[in-house]
């Protein structure tokens, strides 16, 4: 069963990963760039978490501030991606979605810097 699973996922043109990448190239470039930003915020948060696991949580509020910054940025980028996706029927224009994204980042990172200490 394990071999069958690996064959189905990794091998051949009909493998899951191949289909995923071929379909992924078909989505708009704008969304792929936003996915890069999502990956960036994700890995930044992971690196911070690994550091805390290695050396401890002191100062805890600073760790929370940095980690929440990554999480919040990830959420805001995901929201922007949802609004810019042509497949979703949102009534706001792309420019309005981007302006909302910028404003939310302003407010959010003001709180992040306030909490950092």
């Amino acid at each position, binding site marked *: 069963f394990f071999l069958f699973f690996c064959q189905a996922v990794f091998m051949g043109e009909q493998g899951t990963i191949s289909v995923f990448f071929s379909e992924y190239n078909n989505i708009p470039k704008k969304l792929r760039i936003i996915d890069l930003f999502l990956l960036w915020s994700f890995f*930044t948060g992971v690196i911070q978490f690994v550091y805390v696991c290695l050396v401890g949580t002191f100062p805890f509020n600073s760790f929370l501030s940095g980690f929440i910054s990554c999480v919040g940025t990830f959420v805001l980028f995901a929201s922007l991606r949802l609004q810019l996706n042509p497949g979703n029927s949102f009534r706001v224009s792309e420019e309005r979605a981007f302006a909302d994204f910028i404003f939310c980042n302003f407010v959010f990172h003001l709180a992040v810097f306030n909490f950092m200490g």
Partner: protein
Amino acid sequence: SLELAMNLMGNVSRHFETFLRPELRPECCEARGQRAEGLGRFRRAERKTQAGGEGFGLGWFEERITMRALSSLAPLLLCATLLASVGAISLASASEEEFLAITVSGVELSVFEEHPGNELKLKSKEKIDKSPTVFDPAVHLHETSEIRLSLEVGGVGSGDLKPQQRLLTLTHAERPAKAARVVGDVKGHETKAGTLVVTFTVTVDSIEGQIGTLNGEYDAQVVVADSRFATQYEATFGRVVVSHTQNDDGSLPSDPPLDAAEIEYAPRPEFEHIMREDVKRPPAMVSMVFAGAVICPLGLLLLLVAASGANLKRLGSVFPQALVFHAALAAVLAVVVYYWVELPFLKTLPVLSGVGVGAALSGYFLLNKLIKLD
């Protein structure tokens, strides 16, 4: 006197009520029965009035309100008049009284020692010219000695005056809650008219009777005052070393135990605060490595964005607007960082509001330009 006053008020009230209600007077009726009959006629007339026979409310009001109010008002008016007259008399007498401008001189502290034959002889005499006065060496008081402080109070006039407050207070230096007080004796000066001599005699027994066998150094304060004096006399001197009578085995008597007040307000035992141990910090190199590791995804992001074919073709046509917009974003970030470093929050908000409005406007114009280019 209070009972007498209450009886007086009751009698006045009854007589005044009798004056207001003639039907209650004994002379109105020949006998008690006729008086009762008179009262009964009054009651019947009252009931008839209440039923509306001769006008409603006048008889009822006269009985329930006016009569009783007037009868109770009279003793109150009498007491108020008496109090007002007493107050006026006291004020008048007080305004006539003048305060005495006293002068104190000849303040001396004498130490007497007991010699064989129970005879007291003067050992030393010191003058107290100023306050506070510090004796060097200190004055010693023990079971065979006696301390006398005398002072002359002039300007008291020819009347027989004894200052109301004449106290010598000895306060223990280490246990201030323990204080012994000696009242001074007063007699007229032998040669000077209008002058009193106040003498304080302090012995070990007088101190022991008040605060127990508490040895050690005492601070002394003398006060001579009266409500008729314009100013009081107060002087401080010290120290007086007191040694109580030794026990039979030659040891000094023990100090009295601490009072509840001394225990409550005594200094608490010293203790060392246990501070929280500093958290173990990682090596600086580890922190720097991870700081660099956090920046790496940003660089990787920029490379991947460029490699993914980000559209920069229209950057030239909107370059000024894009530059202004991104400069405004950088200004917002700079204000936030400055707030993090130094600026107070309430000063940050107006600055951030202004810069944010600028960023919003520049972004609006940029997006507008992009839409028009589409």
